[in-house]
């Protein structure tokens, strides 16, 4: 067996399925066969779409795109564990979670095509916030939103996604500390994928991320982020604690970024091929699919049918992305300032040829 990604060392993460797909925990996480199948289908769609997005960037149709291959279980498992009133605060790498929340992928990808800032989907309708490029700021937003939920007396929670790199930001500390002090109904969900662009987790922190929760006064959990059932179960329990007024939970999901940080990055410059091929041995989709097959929830015919459907679905998304017209150029002036400075008024008229 290939060796585990370097940053998985230390405390054993919670698991339902071992990396080889064998059962090591209770598979009854509260999902019926239909839901289990939907879970795998989301993961398959997410991976195929992720690869298409990278191709679209190489073809000049997207400006820049951050891939998430290898992180499908962490995203799909956690997003599926949330209720319709819960609110997700994503980074820029949560397309799989967005799919689960019902965000239109063409609208989501408008951001990466550069035709819309933040994506034209309605965050209130999908309860999925705008794509957030600044590192760790969305954790603050998520905690603030959760404090609002508590003040309103609404039985719901927020979930903020972030990476291992975010935990070195002041925003993470401030948000986590505030969440603990005010008992905010929030889930702080760290996808520790081993790399913050070129910085490995070992250079990010000398400790284990999940353990920091103790210092903030709330539970921290380390889960195998490539085990979709375990991710689902732990997120569901964290949400249940939030609903019950028991405050925040920090979840460290151990996963691995198989691809580049983004299409503008060349990981060959800072990590070896061996590490990546080893990590592929812990693939989240292969693990879950193997268990579903063994449990009799799916068969090869179903998978073949899905493959054709997903291919069709992704081509439709591709065409939708390419068909997006550029927005009227004056929007960048009209929608930035309530009262544009005079210099921008001059530029606006120059651009419009006036």
């Amino acid at each position, binding site marked *: 067996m290939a060796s585990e990604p370097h940053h998985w060392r230390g405390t054993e993460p919670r698991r339902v399925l071992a990396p080889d797909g064998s059962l090591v925990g209770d598979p009854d996480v509260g999902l019926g066969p239909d839901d289990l199948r939907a879970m795998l289908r989301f993961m398959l769609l997410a991976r195929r779409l992720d690869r*298409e997005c990278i*191709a679209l*960037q*190489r*073809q*000049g*149709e997207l*400006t*820049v795109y951050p891939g998430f291959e290898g992180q499908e279980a962490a995203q799909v498992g956690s997003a599926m564990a949330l209720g319709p009133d819960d609110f997700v605060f994503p980074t820029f790498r949560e397309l799989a979670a967005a799919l689960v929340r019902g965000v239109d992928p063409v609208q989501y990808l408008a951001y990466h095509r550069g035709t819309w800032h933040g994506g034209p989907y309605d965050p209130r309708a999908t309860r999925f916030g705008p794509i957030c490029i600044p590192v760790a700021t969305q954790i603050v937003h998520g905690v603030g939103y959760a404090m609002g939920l508590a003040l309103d007396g609404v039985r719901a929670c927020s979930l903020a996604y972030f990476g291992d790199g975010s935990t070195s930001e002041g925003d993470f500390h401030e948000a986590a500390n505030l969440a603990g002090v005010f008992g905010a109904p929030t889930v702080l969900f760290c996808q520790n994928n081993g790399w913050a662009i070129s910085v490995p987790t070992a250079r990010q922190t000398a400790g284990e991320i999940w353990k920091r929760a103790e210092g903030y006064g709330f539970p921290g959990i380390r889960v195998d982020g490539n085990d979709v059932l375990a991710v689902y179960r732990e997120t569901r329990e964290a949400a249940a604690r939030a609903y019950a007024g028991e405050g925040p939970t920090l979840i460290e999901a151990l996963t691995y970024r198989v691809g*580049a940080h983004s*299409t*503008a*990055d*060349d990981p*060959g*410059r800072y990590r070896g091929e061996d590490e990546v091929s080893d990590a592929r041995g812990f693939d989240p989709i292969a693990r879950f699919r193997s268990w579903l097959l063994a449990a009799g929830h799916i068969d090869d015919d179903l998978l073949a049918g899905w493959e054709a459907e997903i291919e069709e679905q992704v081509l439709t998304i591709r065409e939708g992305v*390419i*068909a*997006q*017209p*550029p*927005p*009227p*150029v004056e929007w960048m002036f009209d929608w930035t300032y309530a009262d544009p400075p005079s210099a921008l008024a001059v530029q606006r008229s*120059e*651009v*419009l*040829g*006036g």
Partner: protein
Amino acid sequence: MSAERLFSMPDLGEGLEEGEIVEWLVAEGDTVALNQPLVEVETAKATVEVPSPYAGVVISLHGPVGSTIAVGGALATFAVADEVAEDGDSSGQPQPGADADSAATPDQHPSRGGRTTPPVRKLAKELGVDLASVVGSGADGRITAEDVEAARGSGAPATSADAASRKVIATNLERQAAIPQVTTFRTVDCSALQVFRKELGVSPLPVVVAALCRTIAMHPSLNALWGDGQVTERDRVHVGLATDTERGLVVPVVRDAHSLGIADIAAEVARLAEAARAGSLSPADLTGATVAVSNTGSYGSEAGTPILSPGTSVTLAVGVIEARALIADGAVVARPACTLSCTFDHRVLDGAVVGRALGDLVEVLTSADRLGDLRR
């Protein structure tokens, strides 16, 4: 039936300008599937495999291995089944796959006024080139920096440049007017100066600049600046010369004037004046003044109250040199003379300090011996 589609070199990173062909993964005449690996390209950031944006037949590959293609330049041409093509679209869309929907959108960028990029707009402003009169040679008819350079001097009207430079002047003056500044005056007998500068074959200005540098060596606080709640002295003396041009006031800078002789200062003054008239001053020519001189005499003014130039604590206006009635040895005599008007930042300098410094400056300018001590 099939239609030709051109695939242009995309920006494979963020803000890259070109890519080098490492290896073609298909050959001309090959039938390719959508997303089939097409070419390996090396950019400044990474080596990446580019997948084919079309399903069809490769008609041509536009560069040999090892060649560099600019972003937006032709990479490969395909023949694609005509169900995805439409009339008039065979000449090569810059965006692969741009279809009827996007081509027909009502928000096509207007070409009137010249489609171009912000740096080129800035360049056009600096050079006084009206973009509306320039024909673009770049992708999509975009105006390039080269187009603007070429259009310069072609007599394109420069109305917008006038307005822009007026605005810069206004903004600078408004900001400078907030400084507590005081002006003091001295009248100078220019008899010795006129003899000296004619001997050297230069105008009075370079001599005044050299004399001012000599004075600063004795009174370094003239070259200081107020900022962050304190006075900072500066070793190097860069003299800004307030210069009148067709497009308004500019202040080109004689750098390190303290280390130059009068001849070098004169040459630099001439170069800057010429560049100012031609509108070809570089940003380096226009920034960094530590002290300023305004030759208000050039248009006949006797004295003035100049406003400080940005970055300076002293501005010296040199009035017109003309015959005046001066008192020498108790008698009224006609002598060539001028008035020096010295505006200073009162936060940095007190009146007595400036008074003493001006006294030393006058001493240099009026004494044949002291003038002779200046570096030629």
